[in-house]
Structure formats: C-alpha cells, structure tokens
C-alpha cells in the first residue's frame, strides 16, 4: 500500500510536466493544425527564464570587507547583490531565495512574446504546407533555439534551487497514518503538482467560460463557419499560440528546481510529450492531460523493484510500449476526434 502511494506520488511531478507540455502541443495542433516540434524548446526556454532571473537578481558589485581577511591575509572581497542595496539585506535575500517563483511573472510576458514571434514570423507560413514540412521546420527551429541557449548558458546543467521554505520533504506516510519515513515526498514536487493543476484548470476555465475561449473552441471544431460569422479567428489562434508557449514556459520555470536546466532538456521532454499527445488523441485537451498523468504514473510504477524483477527494463520502455499498443488498438488515441491527421 505504501509503495503504491509512493509510486503514484512519484509519477505526479513527471506526469504534471508531460501534461503541461502536451496540453500546449495539442492546443496548438487543435487551433492551428500545426505539429510543433519546437514545443520542447519552449519548455526549455521557460526553465532558462528561471536561470536568467536568478542571475539578474544575484548580479553583484564587489566590495572589500576590511574586517575580514581571506586565507592569504588579504582583505576579503565580498559580492553584494544589487537587490541588497535596493531592498535591504533581509528583503534582498528573500527575493533571491524566491527567484524561481518570481520567474513566473518574468516568464509569462517573455514566453508569450516568443510564442507570438514564432507564430507570426515562421509558423504562419506553414499552415497550408504538409504536416511533414511543419514537423521539419519546427524541428529545425528547435535545434536553433537550443543551440542559442547553449551558446549563452553553456552545455552544463545549471542548478536552480527552490526557495528555502520548500526544501526538504513532507512525510506523507506519517500524515496518512503509516510508519514515518516510508512515504516522503519533496515539498517542491507537491508545489509543482499543485501549480500544474492550477494552470490546467485555468486553461480549461479560460476556454470554457470566456467568450474568447468559446470562439476558439468553436473555431477548433469548425474553423470555416466561425470565419464566415465575421470573426477574425486567425488573430485569436495566434494568441492561443502565445498562450500555449506560456504554458510550456511556466512548466519549464517550475521544473528548474527539480531538474537542473540544460540546453537539451526540451528535446528529451518533447519526444515523450509527443507520445503523450498521440496517446491522448491529437487535438484533445482532456486527452492530453489524462494521458500525461497516466503515463507519468505508469512510468513510476514500472520502476518499482518488484515490477523490475518480473519484467527487467520495463521502466525504460513502458511509455513507448503503451503508446504502440494504444495507437494500434485505438488509432485516435484515448480521446481523439475522428479524422484528425489521417490523410
């Protein structure tokens, strides 16, 4: 029992990331009909937004502290972040500590902007081209984006810690009445899950309850009719691309403390996210979310010792295996609409 709960919990954070990326992917596909291989790069750029902001916040001037000396006896040089000067030392330290959550505010406009530039500058020209061309050009874009990041930030992972308040773990087992220290779970992962749930809820609410969202949903179902009603659906779809980019970016920002950002993390997640989208059904938003969590949890179950004893190596391939089985038995994925992507 404890083991099962632990595995479900372990699956949640990865599942949350899959679900968020897949949600954006399928949103872009459903609205614009574009298969975006650069979506993983957006996730990666989001993570680097967190890196960037924490670098900005820790930007320092060097002062010489006469009261202390270093091991050679020279006066000690101390870096004082500029934020200390502006907000005082205590407040400044807190701001630096909270760099990752603060990056959310920083990332939203940045990611929206990147998304809009991508759509207007490149993807717009590919609506009428075959899906293979869309895959290829966004694949090329993904390479370019990750190389740019690599140029500026280097090839090594950059540790980006969560705020002190969320370090350490929560003893789930004790809270549920099991033995202590059996089910422990890092706080930040709980935060990530809650954050993902809020974002997913917000996207659905936005599509469900706002006029804008209703028009977009109508356009997803029948673009031409909505166009005939005199609504400029293209403009809204462009904004949806920005939104999808922001969702991917936020998923990346919050993931930075879980996995130190590196330039190829986007590609690593992209491959799995595509599998998630296809399993959920191309163009189905609930399908993407459900499949994201499902596959995340399945993956963590497959890495249990007991399972590995029976089926060695299953943890490595479970997602792909499930994808193959679902694609062959339910060609449209779990919740896909008929006739999507089947020329």
């Amino acid at each position, binding site marked *: 029992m404890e083991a099962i709960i632990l595995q479900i919990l372990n699956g949640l954070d990865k599942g949350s990331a899959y679900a968020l990326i897949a949600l954006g992917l399928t949103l872009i596909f459903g609205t614009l009909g574009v298969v975006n291989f650069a979506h993983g790069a957006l996730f990666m750029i989001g993570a680097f937004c967190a890196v960037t902001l924490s670098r900005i916040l820790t930007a320092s001037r060097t002062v010489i502290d006469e009261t202390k000396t270093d091991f050679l006896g020279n006066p000690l040089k101390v870096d004082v972040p500029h934020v200390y000067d502006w907000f005082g030392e205590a407040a400044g330290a807190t701001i630096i500590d909270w760099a990752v959550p603060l990056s959310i505010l920083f990332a939203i406009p940045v990611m929206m902007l990147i998304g809009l530039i991508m759509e207007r500058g490149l993807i717009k020209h590919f609506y009428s081209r075959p899906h293979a061309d869309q*895959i290829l050009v966004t694949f090329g874009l993904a*390479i*370019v984006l990750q*190389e*740019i990041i*690599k140029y500026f930030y280097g090839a090594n992972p950059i540790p980006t810690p969560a705020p002190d308040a969320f370090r350490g773990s929560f003893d789930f087992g004790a809270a549920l009445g099991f033995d202590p220290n059996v089910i422990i779970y890092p706080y930040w992962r709980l935060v990530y899950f809650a954050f993902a749930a809020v974002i997913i809820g917000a996207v659905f609410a936005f599509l469900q309850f706002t006029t804008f969202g209703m028009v977009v949903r109508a356009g997803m179902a029948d673009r031409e009719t909505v166009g005939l009603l005199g609504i400029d659906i293209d403009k809204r779809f462009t904004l949806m691309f920005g939104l999808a980019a922001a969702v991917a970016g936020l998923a990346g920002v919050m993931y930075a403390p879980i996995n130190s950002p590196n330039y190829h993390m986007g590609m690593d997640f992209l491959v799995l996210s595509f*599998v998630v989208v*296809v399993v959920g059904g191309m163009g189905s938003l609930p399908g993407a979310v459900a499949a994201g969590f499902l596959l995340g949890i399945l993956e963590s179950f497959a890495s249990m010792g007991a399972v590995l004893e029976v089926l060695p190596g299953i943890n490595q*391939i479970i997602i792909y295996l499930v994808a193959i089985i679902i694609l062959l038995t339910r*060609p449209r994925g779990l919740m896909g609409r008929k006739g999507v992507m089947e020329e």
Partner: protein
Amino acid sequence: MLGLNKKDLKLLLIVAVLAILAPFILNPFPEDSAMAQFNAGYPDLMQRFVIFGIFAIGFNILFGLTGYLSFGHAAFLGVGSYAAIWMMKLLTMNVIPAIMLSVLFAGLFSLIVGWISLRRSGIYFAILTLAFAQMSYSLAYSVLTPITGGETGLQPKVTDPRILDGTLPQGETARANIFGLEMNSSYDLIVGGWLFTFNVGYYIAAIAMLASFYVAIRIFRSPFGTMLRAVKSNQTRMYYTGLNAKPYTLAAFVISGMYAGLAGGLLVAMDTQAGAERMFWTASGEVVLMTILGGAGTLIGPVLGAGLIKYMENILSKINKDILHQWFAFLPDGLEDFIITIVYPFIGKGWHLTLGLIFMGVVIFLPGGLVEGGQRIARLFRGKKAKESDSDKSTQSTPAE
C-alpha cells in the same frame, strides 16, 4: 548500359569518379598551409561520407518516394552494427560475412517494425517508429546488456572464439580485414606539400555506396518506384485501382532498413565497435536532416546532404577562436574582434546552430533541398544564356537546347 538511361548513367559515372578521386578532391590544400584544416580527405571522414551517404540513400527510398516520415531509422543502423560485431566476435574478422549479416538482421527487424508501424500513417507513423527506436535504444542500454554490451558497447577481444580465424598469435589484436587486407591500411602519396591518403576501408565503403546508389537508381526508375510515388500522391486512388498500398510501403520500409543495416555493418567494419548511442533518436533525426537538406525524392540529394552534415560536424566544428584570430589578423583590432564575435557562435562548437539555420532555410525556401537550389541556379544561368542568344539571333543562329 547497366539498364540505365543516358542521364542516369552519367550521374552514376560522375558519382563513381568523384568517389574514386575523393582522396584528391577532398585534400585540395597543402599539409602545412593555414587552409589544411579544411582538408576532409582523411580516411575516417571519407568513410563517414560514404557510409552515411548509404544510410541517407536508403532513407530516401522510404521518405522521398512514399512520403512516410520515419523518426526511428537509426534503430536499424544499430541492429546492423550489433550483428556485424557479433559476426566478428564469433566467426571471423573478415568484414564480408559481418556486413551480410548486418543487412539481413536489419532487414528482419525492419520487417517487424514496418509491419506494425505501417498500420498508421502521417504523424502516427512517425511516432510509432520513434517509439520502436527509443525502445530499442533503452533496451540495448539496459536489459540486453549481455548482447549489446550496455554502456560500454562491444569490441572484438582477443579471447573471442572466431571459429574461422583461429587463435591470434601472441600480442596481436584482432583487426578487421577483407581476405587478409586490413581495413585500416593506407597508402600515403606525397606530392610536393600535398598528402593524399588511399585507404582500404574507404574504398570498400565507396564500392558499397556505388552499388547502393546504382540499386537506388534502378528502384527509382522501376514500376515499383512509380508505385511508391503513387502511394505518396494519392492512397485513395491507389486503393480504388485495386492496389493494396501496404505491401509497397512495407517493401520500401524493409529496403531502407536494409540500407541502414548496411551502413551499420560498414561502420563496424571501419572502427570495430558498436554502441547503443547509434540508435538514439537524434541519430534518426540526423538522417532526416541529411535527406531533406540534400533533397528528398532526388537521387543525388541524400548523398550531398550526408556529405554536408558530416563535413560540418568534423571540419566546421574544429575551428576555434585562435584560428579565427589568425584569419582576420589583417583587420584593424576593433573590427577583427567585432567580426569574430559575430562569426564565432556559428562555428566550432556552435556548428549545430549553423546546421539548424541552414536546415530551416532549406525547408522554408527550398523544399527540394540543395538539388533544387542547384537546379535553380543552373536555370538562372541558362535563362541568361537564352536571353543573350535571343538578342544575338539577328547575327548568328544558336542551336536549340
């Protein structure tokens, strides 16, 4: 001749001549000149040119003709590599059986993967092939370690049985050979400041490439090739003409899988090692890049694409800041630094950035790849000539094209 029409025969002959003279063509600069680093005529790189050329030619038979975009072809290359290395461990270091077995195994594996994946088309097909390849990669790294050597990969060892070769003399290491002629033996020709290397392994690979290229031409020009293009063009009409598209696409898939296996076997013949990283999905992505870059659906395109990418990977990537400073030393200091700052991100370790940009440019502006680019330039020149001849018509008559 050879069952080809004149145009195709000419193309084959040009490729053959280029392949034979590659040690000269790729080493145009004297050894001690500053430009020597652009020389690509060393055995290791020349081998890569032709081997990845084979890989791309095969991929093009699937993608270029049928339009099915596979994102998992590296798996077949990997299977071919493992098959070849096992042959070297168990039977003989002679590369012929190794290469034959790698083609066979890759063919069988692609038959299974293709049979399942081809039940779907479009992006679903791409994802299915990707899933199979990633599974193969993960399994090769973990559970299948007894067969694949896991992280360390496989190399021939002195203790291997090698039934046909017998035990090695004391202190000898196992070397890949073809009937006794070692693959890595070379003949160096020094002419003035120039060094030209003729390597056995390269010529074996080049012969394999020419044979592959020849077969590809025959397939393109055959009724089977026409059928494959028909599959790409309109599957509905295909079905309502009484044709089942699946056997055609499956045949193309297996053929391209066998090409990948051949490439894998040849890689092992050259460097006598096999590892799982050859199956990673980026390796599958690379062959997609090669084919599109050169020109999908054209005969020569994939070879050009493979050459360009391997050249960038091996030559462009080696240029560092010092070399740039040497080049631009004649400029005033400020300008020199400025230019180097601009250029530096695109070369050396940043060569992938250049590759990505070129690739995007090709997809956006030149869907027919470098081959289409070449044709456009040729047309531009011919157009100019035609215009000139138009204006000359009053004075002289030019023969029609």
